[in-house]
């Protein structure tokens, strides 16, 4: 078990190319499940590979526990690196697959057996030790692969999109298993993914990266509710956050073409500046659809698309020149062409500076 500290890390893959990782400082706590999240090319895998020692940073320091590991080879860093979870040896038994890393270290076979059995029990695969992986269903193969990573009892697990090639239902099951296991082992875990649902559901904290720059490090719910940049706001959440570009006009946000506007709630007014180019954001579940009726004041709209997902329904609505996505309970029935009124949960709105793309409203602005 160990904490990991990254201090002013830069990584360049050549002059003239933007830095792959740009002045990254990040502390990963002992026993923490930290997810590095971002789109492809954001620098997350490069960061993981530098922690592993597979890539040397151009500048900056990396510490694992108390040790400065800049000059240590991967094998000396006491980490287990797991790529995708299926590279098992098909001709070896489950027992031999799990024990493989220990045999490579020349541990006595009694010790190997003891540790393999211990890991198998934890993963609930004791009954499979004699089988060969090829005959096992995907989920059990994953557990075997996980067992092989666990058996060395590393200080740190590094994982690079391990669930990517699994089918959807197996992926949701493995999410739960991995999270439980990490909680159980309390081993520090750094996990790279581009899948925001994996990041949200499994991590203690998420570090969101884009273009080599760290955008925000925070708990899943804070990342979701209080994104500090427009990028974080729109990258996280399904469907993506609604955004409208415009500016502040007095006590209102007004869209670029002037047709969409919304009153800035009183508690937020002190953070906005008249005339400032601003991006307004609101999540699909913070908009509500109503049948068009005189009694409800809101934005007049028309249903464009209805997407039933079973446990909820998403509507695409044309309202005041914008296309808004709105999440509703499943049994609400509107059809394309219906006239509706859209209301906004004002305490859940987001405002971003259009130039810097930084959030204008601090956390808990609506509570003060």
């Amino acid at each position, binding site marked *: 078990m160990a904490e990991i500290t990254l201090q002013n890390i830069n990584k360049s893959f050549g002059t003239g190319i933007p830095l792959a990782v740009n002045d990254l400082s990040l502390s990963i706590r002992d026993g923490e499940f930290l997810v590095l999240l971002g*789109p*492809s090319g954001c620098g997350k895998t490069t960061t993981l590979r530098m922690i592993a020692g597979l890539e040397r940073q151009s500048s900056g320091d990396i510490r694992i526990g108390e040790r400065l590991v800049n000059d240590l080879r991967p094998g000396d860093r006491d980490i287990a690196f797991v790529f995708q979870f299926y590279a098992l040896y098909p001709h070896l038994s489950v027992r031999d697959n799990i024990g493989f890393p220990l045999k490579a270290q020349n541990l006595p076979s009694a010790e190997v057996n003891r540790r393999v059995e211990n890991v198998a029990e934890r993963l609930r695969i004791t009954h499979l030790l004699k089988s060969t992986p090829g005959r096992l269903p995907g989920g059990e193969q994953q557990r075997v692969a996980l067992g092989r990573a666990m058996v060395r009892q590393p200080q740190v697990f590094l994982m690079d999109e391990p669930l990517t090639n699994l*089918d*959807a*239902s197996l992926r*949701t099951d493995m*999410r*739960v298993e991995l*999270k*439980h296991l990490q*909680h159980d082992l309390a081993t520090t875990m750094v996990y790279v993914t*581009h*899948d*925001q*649902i994996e990041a*949200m*559901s*499994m991590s203690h904290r998420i570090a969101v990266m884009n273009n080599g720059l760290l955008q925000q490090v925070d708990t*899943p*719910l804070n990342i*979701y*509710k209080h994104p500090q940049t427009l990028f974080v706001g*729109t*990258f*996280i*959440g*399904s*469907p*993506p956050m609604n955004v409208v570009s415009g500016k502040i006009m007095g006590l209102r946000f007004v869209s670029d073409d002037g047709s969409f506007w919304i009153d800035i709630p009183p508690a937020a007014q002190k953070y906005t500046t008249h005339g400032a180019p601003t991006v307004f954001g609101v*999540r699909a*579940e913070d908009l509500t659809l109503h049948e068009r009726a005189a009694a409800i004041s809101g934005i007049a709209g028309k249903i*464009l*698309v209805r*997407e*039933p*997902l*079973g*446990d909820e329904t*998403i509507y*695409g609505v044309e309202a005041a020149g914008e296309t808004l*996505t709105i*999440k509703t309970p*499943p049994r609400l029935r509107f059809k*394309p062409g219906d006239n509706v009124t859209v209301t906004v949960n004002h305490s859940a709105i987001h405002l971003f500076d259009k130039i810097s793309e930084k959030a204008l409203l601090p956390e808990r602005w609506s509570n003060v």
Partner: protein
Amino acid sequence: MSSLEVLNLSKRFGRKQALNGLNITVKDGEFMVLLGPTAAGKTTTLRCVAGLEKLNGGSITLDAEVITALSPAERDIALVFQTYALYPRKTAFENMAFPLEARGWDTDRIKRRVEEVAAILRITELLNRRPAQMSGGQQQRVALGRAMVRQPRLFLMDEPLTNLDFKLRVEMRAELKRLQAELAATFFYVTNDQVEAMSMADRIAVLNHGELQQVDTPEQIYDHPANLFVAQFVGSPRMNTFACRFDADQRALISADGTMKLDLTPSQLDILQAVGNTTALVFGCRPEDLSIVEKGVVVGTVYVLEPLGDRTFVDIKVGAQSLRVRADANYRAAEGSKIEVAFDLARCHVFDAQTGKTLF
């Protein structure tokens, strides 16, 4: 615009029977999604309709005309794949114009038609760009435009959104559905992604191992699955299921490990009474049909909490069973703590474990 009828379609690859007497009707102007896991026979079905595979039996009818013997080109069907297959050296305009040039249209007419379609797809400003200068989503629109210019009788689509990133995929879903409705075109769309199927389809045909499982509207498929396969394949996260049997004396369902006893509604009891005690059953309930309450019918131990921002999934263990419960975004509980769960029984299902058939 046209209706498609696939009748008794059979297809073998060597000794492997890929499709065995498949029947599907796609109505004029309908968005039909063929949904199933890998190797279910979806793409084979689509290729048979397109004329890219020879059938071993059955017929394919488009607008009351049997097209089984026609070549792909004679069928007047457009195919859109997950790879866009655009000509890299041609601009978007030239890519879209190509099928019309091949048909000998004159330049003015081609220009008018390409611009008309580009406006519908909102790619007018991209017409002078080459594929390398466009994003994946833009390229997919151009590929779609190339299929649309010649106004085919039927659009066949094979996982066209698979290669797009998540955000774009969500956008394109809504876009494709809007487009299909606007054109009143007939779409036959293949995917293994149940979210795509649910969100876009007028009706979904669920296929597994070459056999049709159910054809119905998204809501019916979700709320009233015909069998255990459909119930588990559609919905994310997956429906909770566990083995159980009916105890006629207690008039209740008992889980196989004996840790859960569920009272049922009178009409559900009547159905089970008719089935009897001896049949192995599977109970099924979706995460949103369970709720965490003060006083519930089962007590579970919190295994993992999965916060997603707009909701939280709570994974609990009850004896040997795992249950996933949908809770509010702000729900909090410590791992290992005990919580009580209630079931919305009217929305729960019981399946015959042997046949997979839905009893209710």
